[in-house]
């Protein structure tokens, strides 16, 4: 079926492209894996609509982040104490662990702006449309995020 073939192609390309963006945004490879599958499942369910979007991969990214955020919020209902060692063990597999950790210190919205702009290559206007904010908000958010990262000595001392 044409619809299903079209989705299969979208799935392959989108998973490769959006998964790293979700890892960078969420800072947890396993959660990113769950969220990309969730988002692609939703895309499959509504493929006739999603395929007509201007930025379907951006839609998948947004849905993935929102799902992961909601999931984390549900988990936060339990009294938990995180183990930094455990987190570190999960993140150590990443090629630039330090960057992921620094990104995780940014507000989620700023992280999303950075990743959409520099990771997925969307323009300011496209990023604004995907996040439902004004273009000026994206500009200022990206500026603040970059400023904060630049101010962090670990960025300056990071990889050459």
């Amino acid at each position, binding site marked *: 079926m044409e619809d299903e073939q079209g989705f299969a192609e979208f799935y392959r390309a989108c998973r490769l492209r959006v998964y790293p963006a979700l890892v960078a945004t969420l800072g947890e490879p396993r959660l990113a894996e769950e969220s990309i599958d969730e988002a692609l*499942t939703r895309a499959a369910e509504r493929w006739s609509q999603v395929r007509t979007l201007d930025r379907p991969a951006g839609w998948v990214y947004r849905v993935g982040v929102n799902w992961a955020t909601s999931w984390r919020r549900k988990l936060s209902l339990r009294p938990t104490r995180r183990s930094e060692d455990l987190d570190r063990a999960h993140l150590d597999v990443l090629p630039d662990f330090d960057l992921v950790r620094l990104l*995780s210190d940014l507000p989620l919205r700023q992280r999303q702006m950075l990743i959409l702009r520099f990771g997925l290559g969307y323009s300011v206007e496209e990023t604004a449309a995907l996040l439902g904010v004004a273009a000026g908000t994206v500009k200022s958010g990206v500026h603040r995020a970059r400023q904060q990262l630049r101010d962090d000595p670990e960025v300056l001392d*990071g990889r050459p």
Partner: protein
Amino acid sequence: MDVRERIGNLMSEVRPLPGGDAEATFRRGRRRVRRRRILAAGGSAVVAAVAVVWVALPDAGGSRLPLIDDTPETIDVEIPNGWQTITAGEIAVSVPPDWEISQPYESFEPPEGARLGGPCHTDLYQPKEADGDRESDASVAVVYDRPTDGVCRAAGFTGPPPRPGLVLFETIRGTVDGVEGQPGGERVDIEDHARRDRIGQLEVWRTVDDERASSDDGSGIIAYIAAELTGGIWVSHPDAPIIERILATARPAPGAQPRTIEAVTSHRDLPDDAWELLGEGASDHYLGGGRVLTDQAELDRLWAELGFEDQAPTLPEQTIAIVGATYAGGLPGGCHEHREVVGVRMRGSGANILLGPFAPGQQGQCSDTPIIHIVTAPPELAEGLAVVGTETVDDQ
């Protein structure tokens, strides 16, 4: 190396784990969706206000592409017999007969600029920032929003506050400067509405715990509240709507019976991404947000976005709509473990309209499918309308 380059490199170096084909992902995803709903296992609220329209959505089952192909059934809700209705101008709110209503709200006029108690957040946690490892006598608080009156209350207070006689607020917004466990330089106003005066300003403390920082949209404030203050406080927050006046408050009377859904007889599966399409706040456990529509065309567009191929419900003339959604959730025999409250906050009328609570409690009346709610109101109230969201309280 610039941040842009490092992000680019990270994107090129990270590869997903082998995930199988699209069909396998789809099957796996459906199982996850089902599991998530089981975990969510909550009830949903259905109480009607005048001009409230419930759109009941029959279940579409597990078919694929397109998943949703049923014709929606629109139900104009009639106020259940015996319910109490509060009216003010064109606004009316109906609550169950065994609820307590205060009208007007003790003639209380909020101080100028006061803001509705607002973005409180349901949470349960240990104040490790407050006192290191003293878990045995640490404060543990559940703080939740009271959509009826904007009061944040604490339950489960089990120990002394971090600082004697003080209300310590933390923010889960990720934008406050400072270091973990240290004052962040931002302040919130605290007002004791029982004494009707401002207690003062308190520092907002920052947490860098990612679980909380993930809610960086200002939707939540987590608070430690001293025991003597749990009778009710106003919480001011920059993101909260300004109070104009309080129309009335209503809340379940002690011992009030949980409600079942009385007005919705069927529903259907809402797309899982409805939460995104409807706006943050439309989902369970999430306070604040939702989506306010100002005309029929917007509702039509939303309907199309949601993937409904049929016609959107027709709004009454001269109305706007607030759209939110909840799960009417739970497994048979399991949904009585929770009760939920759906609230709609209106600034123009000064009212917080409460659309719940609902605790099914009876097997067979639970559903694990989401329901979309459309609440209509006069257009002049558009600016102040917001879906407060739902609140789930575990009874066990």
